[in-house]
């Protein structure tokens, strides 16, 4: 339980925070001096909301109105949402009525949550950002959404993404391109770009995304928010439109580690509708978020941290490398024991991932045939109906991956590609297991660079795939990982955020959350608020 809570911050009064990175270029645009003594560590929006509602300081409707107003103001520039719910105020009113009656409130009461558009929400459009599902309204809620609603959470809307999760920039959406709140000419990352940007821009408090090869962690890094990928099987995939079934997970975004952790706790647990969901107990993650005032002088004393050597070699931007090394020093200052670890199979992860993901997606996306749901292009013959509905409904990147997967799984090619990739997966798992036997967590950058310009990688698939090098191995191994902002590098009007990735052993999200929370709360100049918000009330 958190024993002290700071009052909610007024976002419009916040000056830009800047993290001092020694020996790297600092943004010339900002010449403000930062008085670190007045910057308080970031506070959990979930707990702040709860306290405000219970004390009567504000109502759920007032909170909802302020967020909806911020959405109205910022959406024309950001385009995070494909659909904003018409029921936000009604849902908020229900919460207020429950408070008035003195009824018990769930832990997410009044919390405004964005949901990635490949996660089914009953009655609300769920398109996976694809034309083939353009008007589709699912008849059911995904289990993760059902749990959120049961605990009092309010679904604000459906966020933009790369079509069917295939992409790293959110440019592959069939409908719109989301902009990075830190620099509107840059990508927010992908494929959960809309969810990450919406939290960064405070259009919602927390959001759900999905992570198949880094689709929660990389946009978290690009947008300066916390992105949490649970262990495979921790969260039910029922209602998540499948991309690669052996790799997909639903993940959480928050502006603090505590928020991401509390949202994860809410959606975790065994589900009979998902045969790959785990029966492992879900620990009380809340106990990992004590107030910074209660920290000991070396709160992470004895925690063994392995920094992955292969992630700091050539090809990683110098600013990212410095920020990661600074983060490692910060962990050392907190009492961690840092060593360098090597994962020899590391670079094999990228081709193995794309073989597996393309192959599994070619199978998973065969259900979109225009017959039972989605857009149908009528034809005189059945195969033509399939071909035309899919040809017109799918975007270029999706078609390419389906075709690559079809090739890799063709008769006679299975051993050369898919089976081989699965064997490489075994090698990768072994390397991680060995490293995590010697260390409590592993760290690396979340991506080789900060956010790049919109359009920069659009025509070169391999250039885009290369950016996933830091994240895909974690999906292949099925491990939990979290990205949290650790610094800024040059770019954009006020610098661009860079995230640190922490990787834990299977089902050990607790350790990640504990280390991440302490890291975040003790980081100097640690409020990552994009400059866009300085002008928005």
């Amino acid at each position, binding site marked *: 339980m958190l024993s002290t809570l700071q009052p909610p911050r007024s976002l419009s009064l916040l000056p830009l925070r800047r993290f001092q990175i020694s020996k790297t270029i600092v943004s010339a645009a900002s010449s403000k001096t930062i008085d670190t003594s007045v910057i308080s560590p970031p506070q959990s929006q979930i707990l702040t909301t709860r306290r405000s509602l219970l004390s009567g300081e504000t109502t759920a409707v007032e909170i909802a109105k302020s967020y909806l107003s911020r959405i109205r103001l910022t959406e024309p520039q950001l385009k995070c949402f494909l659909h904003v719910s018409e029921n936000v105020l009604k849902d908020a009113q229900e919460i207020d009525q429950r408070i008035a009656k003195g009824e018990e409130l769930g832990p997410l009461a009044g919390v405004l949550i964005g949901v990635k558009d490949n996660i089914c929400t009953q009655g609300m459009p769920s398109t996976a950002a694809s034309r083939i599902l353009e008007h589709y309204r699912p008849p059911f809620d995904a289990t993760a959404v059902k749990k959120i609603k049961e605990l009092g959470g309010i679904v604000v809307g459906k966020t933009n993404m790369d079509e069917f999760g295939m992409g790293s920039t959110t440019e592959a959406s069939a409908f719109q391109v989301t902009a990075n709140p830190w620099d509107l000419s840059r990508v927010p990352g992908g494929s959960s770009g809309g969810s990450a940007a919406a939290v960064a821009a405070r259009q919602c408090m927390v959001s759900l995304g999905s992570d198949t090869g880094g689709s929660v962690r990389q946009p978290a890094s690009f947008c300066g928010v916390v992105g949490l990928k649970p262990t495979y099987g921790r969260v039910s995939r029922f209602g998540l439109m499948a991309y690669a079934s052996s790799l997909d997970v639903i993940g959480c975004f928050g502006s603090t580690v505590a928020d991401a952790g509390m949202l994860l706790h809410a959606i975790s647990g065994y589900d009979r509708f998902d045969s790959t969901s785990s029966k492992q107990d879900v620990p009380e993650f809340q106990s990992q978020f004590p107030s910074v005032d209660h920290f000991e002088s070396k709160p992470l004393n004895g925690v063994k941290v392995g920094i992955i050597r292969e992630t700091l070699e050539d090809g990683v931007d110098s600013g990212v490398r410095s920020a990661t090394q600074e983060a490692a020093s910060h962990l050392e200052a907190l009492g961690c024991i840092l060593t360098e670890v090597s994962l020899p199979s590391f670079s*094999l992860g990228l081709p193995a991932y794309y073989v597996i993901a393309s192959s599994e997606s070619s199978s998973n996306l065969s259900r979109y045939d225009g017959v039972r749901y989605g857009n*149908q292009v009528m034809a005189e013959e059945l195969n033509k109906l399939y*071909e035309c509905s899919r040809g017109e409904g799918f975007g270029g990147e999706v078609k390419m991956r389906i075709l690559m997967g079809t090739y890799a799984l063709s008769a006679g090619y299975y051993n050369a590609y898919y089976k081989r*990739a699965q064997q490489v997966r075994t090698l990768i798992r072994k390397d991680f297991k060995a490293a995590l036997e010697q260390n409590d967590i592993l760290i690396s950058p979340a991506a080789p660079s900060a956010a790049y310009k919109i359009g920069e990688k659009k025509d070169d698939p391999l250039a885009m795939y*290369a950016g996933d090098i830091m994240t895909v191995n974690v999906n292949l191994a099925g491990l939990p990982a979290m990205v949290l902002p650790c610094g800024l590098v040059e770019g954009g009007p006020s610098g661009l955020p860079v995230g640190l990735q922490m990787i834990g052993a299977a089902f050990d999200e607790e350790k990640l959350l504990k280390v991440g929370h302490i890291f975040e709360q003790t980081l100097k100049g640690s409020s990552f608020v994009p400059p866009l918000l300085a002008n928005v009330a």
Partner: protein
Amino acid sequence: MATRALLAVIYASPNRCYISPSRIKIQSLTCSSSSHYYQRQSRKNHRIARSYSSDSDSSVLQPPDVARLAQTARISLTPAEIEECETKIRRVIDWFGQLQQVDVNSVEPAIRAEMDGGNLREDAPETFDNRDSIRASIPSFEDAYLKVPKILNKE
């Protein structure tokens, strides 16, 4: 700040197809120098890939025939799309070729991350309580049937 893409390529010495993980050399490339490299690598990868092909007799890993793949995947592509796709897909498939050079002898394939196992449900059907909502999504529906055009046998 320019962003450099990292492409790690693992290559064996010409006389050996086996490489142990501890001897993997990693070469980083920038994308701009790629096209000449890819042509060379593409020919080498196809040569090596052939030695790993699964079927005993005639199977050689042919480069992807996009028109044929599109037919298998039931996706219609315009000629322009086929051409664009072909170039991109060939580059990616060539890049996949580096997996051929890894020693996976006696390595078990991992279907997914480790699992609890035994998660089968009862083989008992349950009626979904919102059938109307399912029906509302079906593009062509008549009486109790989904309506689709006839199938024409091409043979």
